[in-house]
Every structure is written in structure tokens, then in C-alpha cells.
């Protein structure tokens, strides 16, 4: 069940460019377990949308099934949401996006939803470069059915009942890069500093923006021996960069790490500043990214940050050369060839 939050808010809460406070971006109270990583991700989404001054009603949140897929209820309460069927969020999001390309789309999924039952759709939505922020809240287990291993559980990881996963893990970020995703990032639900700018950049990215967020399951997969536990992730995390997202005009640049700085420009004029920690890696060079991920794997490190970005590839609606007006706004006069033309068509069948 969902709880309604009190409508009261402090009059001095900071407002964004639209005059909204953070409150306008919140959703219902979460019903997930206390301490669930997913709630931190929801909070980061709220914060990112607030900071970017996005109209909440111009966002559509689409999810599959599972704990992660419940979260769209817990952020952006003024946006339409669609909790669809298990593993099929990408297709629903594709249809929705075709109907109206002007909205901001959040696709929210989990490791079961994307790496198992929904692998087919995950792969194909990447191929098509749908313009969407695709967030996988990855906890390595099936939370809602009480803790079974998922396909992203690492080989050798121990679950709560003590059994050791004998199967190789599917690495969604590497896969997304291989498949041609135009924006791939990895983060940790406990790292708000990194996650919020990543989300902001993903929203602004004109194409498929994938963020794989390690999000520990406090109830079923936070035990010693699990490679998706808070402790394990904190010990093995290796940020590729510290980054900040800079919207058009307003430049905030945070340099809090050593190393060379890189800048990725988006087509709308906004920029992503990256402070690279890893010198042999270039976020615009797929080969170097794949190498970095493979090396991290050998070292049992979890590489986080913006891993790869390519702003030149066309998103699906551009590939399909769809007209400027959203398709859902077209009227009879735009769509129907008319009575007279039908006479000509009939003539062709005589």
C-alpha cells in the first residue's frame, strides 16, 4: 500500500526556475523495505528533475514488474506512470515515445526484469536507440519473491540462505556498450554525488541513456559473501571519474578529484564535465571502455561513472524520420486521405 504524504511544506524551501520546490517532484511514500537502495535512486531522480527544472507532467515513467518497477510510484507524483508487465517495459516505452516524442521518458527496471525475462526487449531497445533514461536498479536478486539469485548475481556470490551462485553474471553495462547504446553509466545507490549528475546528463542525452545502478537489497542480499551488499560495493567501487552535468548557460563545475579533465558536449548546448581518474580510458572510445570494464572485472572492481557516450547517433524517432509534431496530436485532416482520394484508390482495384 502507498501512503499519502502531508501536503504541508516549509515556505522557505528552495525553488527552481519553474518556481517548484522539491515537493512537486516527490511521489507517494515508499513501501519498500527500510534502507532499500531503490529509495535512494528515487530520491536522486527527484533531485535531478528538480535541478533541471523539468515540468513534472511532461515526464512519463514506465516500468516492468518487481521491487524496482514499483518505484515510479515513489517519485514524480504529477507524472503519468505505467507499471506494465514483467520484462516488457522497453516495448511499452517504445510505443509511448513514438506517440509523443516531446516527453522525458524514464524506463525503470531491475536485474530480473531486464537481464532475465526482459533480455530480449532490453537488447532491442538499445539497438533502436530509443530516447529514454533507462535505469536498472540492480541488486542481484529477486526481492519481491524473496531473494532468489538473479542473472546479474556474480559467480561465487553468497545469498542469504548461504548458497553460492554457480553461474556467470550478465554484465548489463558491458553488454549495453557492445550493443551500441549511446550513453552508458554505472553507479551505486549510495553515491548521490555521482548519481544525480549522471541522471541529469542521461535526461539531457538525446538517445538511449542506460544507467546500471548497484542497489543493495537490504533484506535478501546484504549478507556477508554477497557481492551486491553495501559493504562489498563500498569496498570494491572504483569511480572512473567525478563528473558534473552542466545545463546550457549555467555552468557549475566541480573539480574534486585529480587527473585530467574531459568535456562532452551535448547537442542542446549542455556539457558534461568529467574528471578522469583512469588515464587509459576515453568515454567516447568504445574500445577503451570495454578494456577498462574487463580490467576492472579481473581486479574485482566495480567501475562507476559515465562509461561511454556518443551523441552523434540518431534516436529512433529521427531514424524513422517522424514529423515534428507528436503523432498523438495529429488530427483527421493530417491522417485521413479523404473521401475523394478513396475513389482513386478504388479505381486502382478495378
Amino acid at each position, binding site marked *: 500500500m502507498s501512503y499519502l504524504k502531508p501536503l504541508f511544506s516549509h515556505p522557505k524551501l528552495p525553488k527552481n526556475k519553474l518556481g517548484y520546490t522539491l515537493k512537486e517532484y516527490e511521489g507517494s511514500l515508499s513501501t519498500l523495505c527500510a534502507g532499500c537502495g531503490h529509495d535512494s535512486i528515487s530520491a536522486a531522480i527527484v533531485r535531478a528533475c528538480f535541478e533541471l527544472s523539468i515540468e513534472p507532467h*511532461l515526464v512519463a515513467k514506465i516500468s516492468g514488474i518487481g521491487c524496482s518497477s514499483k518505484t515510479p510510484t515513489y517519485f514524480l507524483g504529477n507524472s*503519468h506512470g505505467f507499471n506494465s508487465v514483467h520484462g516488457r517495459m522497453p516495448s511499452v516505452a517504445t510505443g509511448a515515445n*513514438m506517440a509523443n516524442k516531446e516527453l522525458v521518458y524514464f524506463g525503470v527496471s531491475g536485474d530480473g526484469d531486464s537481464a532475465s525475462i526482459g533480455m530480449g526487449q532490453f537488447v532491442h531497445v538499445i539497438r533502436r536507440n530509443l530516447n529514454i533514461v533507462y535505469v536498472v536498479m540492480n541488486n542481484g536478486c529477486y526481492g519481491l519473491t524473496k531473494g532468489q539469485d538473479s542473472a546479474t548475481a556474480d559467480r561465487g556470490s553468497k545469498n542469504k540462505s548461504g548458497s553460492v551462485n554457480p553461474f556467470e553474471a550478465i554484465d548489463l553495462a558491458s553488454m549495453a556498450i557492445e550493443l551500441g547504446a549511446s550513453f552508458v553509466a554505472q553507479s551505486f545507490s549510495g553515491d548521490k554525488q555521482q548519481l544525480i549528475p549522471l541522471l541529469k546528463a542521461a535526461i539531457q542525452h538525446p538517445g538511449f541513456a542506460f544507467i546500471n545502478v548497484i542497489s543493495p537489497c537490504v533484506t535478501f542480499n546484504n549478507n556477508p559473501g554477497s557481492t551486491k551488499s553495501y559493504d562489498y560495493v563500498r569496498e570494491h567501487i572504483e569511480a572512473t571519474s567525478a563528473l558534473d552535468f552542466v545545463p546550457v548557460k549555467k555552468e557549475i563545475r566541480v573539480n574534486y578529484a585529480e587527473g585530467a579533465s574531459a568535456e562532452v558536449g551535448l547537442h542542446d548546448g549542455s556539457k558534461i564535465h568529467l574528471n578522469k581518474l583512469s588515464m587509459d580510458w576515453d568515454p567516447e572510445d568504445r574500445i577503451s571502455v570495454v578494456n577498462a570494464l574487463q580490467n576492472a572485472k579481473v581486479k574485482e572492481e566495480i567501475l562507476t561513472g559515465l562509461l561511454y557516450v556518443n551523441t552523434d547517433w540518431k534516436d529512433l524517432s529521427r531514424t524513422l524520420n517522424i514529423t515534428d509534431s507528436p503523432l498523438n496530436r495529429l488530427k483527421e485532416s493530417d491522417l485521413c486521405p479523404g473521401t475523394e482520394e478513396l475513389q482513386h484508390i478504388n479505381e486502382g482495384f478495378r
Partner: protein
Amino acid sequence: MKTRINDFIVRFANVNGTGSASANYLFAKTIFRMGIPVTPKNIFPSNIQGLPTWYEVRVSEKGYLGRREGIDLMISVNPQSMAKDVQSVKPGGYFIYDSTKKLNPDYERADIHYLGIPMMEMATKAFEDPRKRQLLKNIIYVGALVRLLDMDQQTIRELISEQFEGKKALIEANFQALTLGMEFVEKNYDFPLSFRLEKRNLLENKILVDGNTACGLGAVYGGATLMAWYPITPSTSVAEAFESFCEKYRRDEDGKNKYAFIQAEDELAAMGMVIGANWNGARAFTATSGPGVSLMSEFLGLGYFAEVPAVLIDVQRAGPSTGMPTRTQQSDLLAAGYASHGDTKHILLFPASPKECFELTAEAFDLAEQLQTPVFVMTDLDLGMNDHVSDPFEWEKERKYQRGKVLTTEDLENIGKYGRYLDSDGDGIPYRTYPGTHPTKGAFFTRGTSKDEYAAYTEDGAAYKRNMDRLTLKWNTAKTLVPNALIQHSDTSSSLGILYFGTSTFSSEEARDILSEEGIQVDSLRLKAFPFGKEVEDFVESHRVIFVIEQNRDAQMRKMIVMELNCHPQKLVPILNYDGMPITADAIKSQIVSYLNTESNPNHELSKATV
């Protein structure tokens, strides 16, 4: 021998991938242009090249467009199937074959006529290019038919000129092949045959087109802006038609598309895209066949329960499983009507002609949005892939799309608390909002889980039940919105009825006439939709026996009537055909007559045996 005019069946036996289809089509189209009712049927394998394929053309002055048994003339150009083809000719019929090779003595029958034409030899002599030889060999036999059946020469030449417009050399070559065939008959055989064609004016205004093209066009007229689909026989040509009409009619001034056309990774994704687009206020549809419906069931259940419109064109083929992919059947009724788990049901529409494919596809979008639920257009391979003589397509000037109950920004300003699943009009249909309509009002969470009137998740049994009961109320509203069944009463009042739908229509109506000639009067009802309206209930109620005619093994429509109308099962007698070929009037008539005979002469054999 008496001459039969405009009443016979010709069958062509070819190898697929040899260009025979266009020659055979030329034959059928010429008859159409001569103003004579004609029904061509392609009987083809699930294969691209090298297997037997047949093209059967029924000519019927009386305008019967169903299939009929009995082949009067066989054009056999496929040695693979020749043994069977010889046997399929009616006694007294004709067998035309390529006499370049001598006929195998095993194929000789005393009761049919043989007309050998050395087609390959003639083609080889006349044409240089090997591919051309093969293609024009087909035109040579059409030329022979011009003479044998008295086809109109000018008409066929016009058609050839239209087909190859601007390609003078090709037109000349086709004319040459045509003449070769004609001259061969003139020199070697008596002509015309004892059955032949005669120009009529019976098809004024009619068109000759296949149902899939009509569905694709109906979707363009009906305002579909997204088609998501996965290739599957026999529905693929719906997608091809939609795309090609869109290329012509849906481009803006800058050459950009006023539609999206997506070949999905599978049928699950295709239906997901359709649901997503409809949820977001665009008209979207898919076309598939039985195996695709199985895969789409999960989403169809979501569409029903979350109340999202969707249009699905099901071009049925023979099941179960992969079944016979290139044979026709009406066997997805239960799978479609009750697709998905839980208490789920869906609206089905049953077109019987290309005109109705066009109309009902366009109407499906209105119904789906008015009722906020998936709607199926139930066509089949026979209707979808074969050309049919049809009334022309019609579209009322200034016709508006019925977009159903959708709240605008102003509406939202003026109402109190918005409840997505609140039945404020008492018809079971609540109000939708599209994403992005209003900054602070009207947003809701669509879900496949149970919810209350305000779209909030709930596991409260009473709220769940209220919602399910409202869906039943909506289902009852649907009965008043879907197209009515067409009822025809016989001249004398009858206690017998026949009930049919879709492609069983032509043969059922022909059977009704044959029965009437034999003194058996039946009333008839043609279903156009599920759920059944009051008129269907009354018809079933008011007749003692109703013959339910359909093309599947399990009498699926009969089952649906029993389930939905709560009538006595015994009064519904199944009349079935499920060999994958379109049902014939003879098959219907003989099953009905046999039932009536058994009924009037109760069988005493059992008691005899026990004596």
C-alpha cells in the same frame, strides 16, 4: 453437349517461384474486367521456391464467391503434382499439360479430355533469355485459355499494357507469348470448350482486392499512427500495405512521416509498443496470426485490465501450434475472445469482404478508444491473401474519429478529484487522460495490478470486486456499440436457422439458396461482432435448431454462444470444415441435410443390434 456460360472452375498447378502467380492473376483479372463474378484462390506452400502451388478460379454468373469442389479445367505445369492433379479433374473435364515431354501413360484417364500444348518448347523457340522463357511460358497457357474459354482479347491486352506500363519490350514479349498460345489452339483444337466465358455487366462499381490490403488501408483511414508488428504468414501483407499507403498519404511538406512503422523483435514487443502508444494517446495497431496471438496474450490481459485501447488484426491460419501456416481456418476465436489469464474477454469483429476489412479496421480504432480496451479484427488467410470481388471502399465526408472519453486541460481544471477508474456515467467506461495534459491534475499510475477508482494500488477485495463488476458493465455497454448481426428471414417462417461469420459467409449463403431450391427454408444470421448483441440472443431464442457454420474442429463459435447466451447446447448444431481449405456450400448443405434426415428418421440400428 450443352454449353455452360460463366459457370466453371479452373485450377492451375504450378511450381512456386516461377512467376506463375502474375500470369494466373492476369487470367482472373481479365474475367473480372469482363464483368463476370470470379473468385481466385491461391493455394500455396510455406516455402519460397520449388514446391507445388495451385491457383483456383471459380467463375460464377450467379455471383457465388465461395469455394466449390469439382475442377472443370486443370492447367498442369508442375510434374511434381501431376499424378494428383490428373485425378482431381471432374469426369468430362479437361486437362491441359505441357506436351514438351510426353505424358506419362499412368496419368491417362478415359473420362477426361487431354489438351497437350508444348509450352516449354514454344517458349524456348521464341525467347532467348532463360528467365524470360520461364515467365512467358505461363503467358502461353493463358493465351491458349483466351481461345479455349473465349476470353476477351482486348481486355487481356489492356491489362498486360497496364501491368508493364512504360516497358514496351516487355509488353511486346507478353503479347507475342499470348498470340503463340492462341494460335496453337486455333491450329490444333476445337474451341471454345463446352463451358466458356461471355462478357457481362455484373460487376459495376465493384473492386478486386485482397483483405490484407483493405485492412492496411483501413488503418490509414482510421488514423493509426503506429504499426508495430512481427513478420508472420498470412498477416505480413497487412504491414506491407499499411507502409506503402503511408508512404503515399502520410508524408508532411518536409518529407517527414506522419506515422511510425516498427518491425518488432517478436510479437510480445509488437503488442507492447501498441499498448504504449495507445496509452499515450496515439492510435496504434498490430497484425498477426494465431501464434502471435498466443504470444500477445499477456499484453492483451493488461490492455483489458488497465483499460488501454489496442487494435489487433488476426489473419487466422490453421493451428494448433505452427499448424498449416499457409492454409485458412477460423480457429483463433476462443484464443482471441478470452486471451490471457484471469477473467478476461475481448471484442472481436468479423469482416467477410475486403470492404468490411477496410470498414471494420477503421471502426476497430473507434471502438477500442470508446471502450478503452483491445479490439480484434478477425480475418483469415482466405480473406486476407486472396483477391475478392468486393463493393468499393467508402468513407463518409468529414467523418470524425471517435476518440472516447478523454479529459482535456480545461476539463481537468473544472472537475474535482480525478478518478481514472471512476464510473461517472454509469456505462462502465471511465475517463482517460493522456500524459502531459495538465501540470498538477490528471496524472495517474496505470498498472496491471488491482486498483481503486483513483488508480491507487489496492488489495482490498471489495475494491477489486467493484472494478471487476464495472468491467462487466462496460462489456454490456460494448454489446450496444459493436456492429449488429445481419439477419435474413426466409420467405416462409422457419424454425431453422443458420449462423455464420467471416469467410464462411459466401458459402453459407450459397448453401442457403441450394437448400431453398430443395425445399428447405432457413433463416440466417451473420455475426459481425463479439460480444453478441440482443438481436443474436433473440435469433437463437426464436429458432428450434441453429446450424453454426465455422471453419475449425472444435466448433468454437458454438461454444462461445453456449457460454455467453446461456442457451441449450443441443439446439446449436455444429457445421464444420477444418481441412485448411475454404469451406464450400456443398459441405454445408450436405451436413445440414444429413442432420435433418437423422432427426426425422430416428436411428433404430442400436436396438436391432441388441435383438
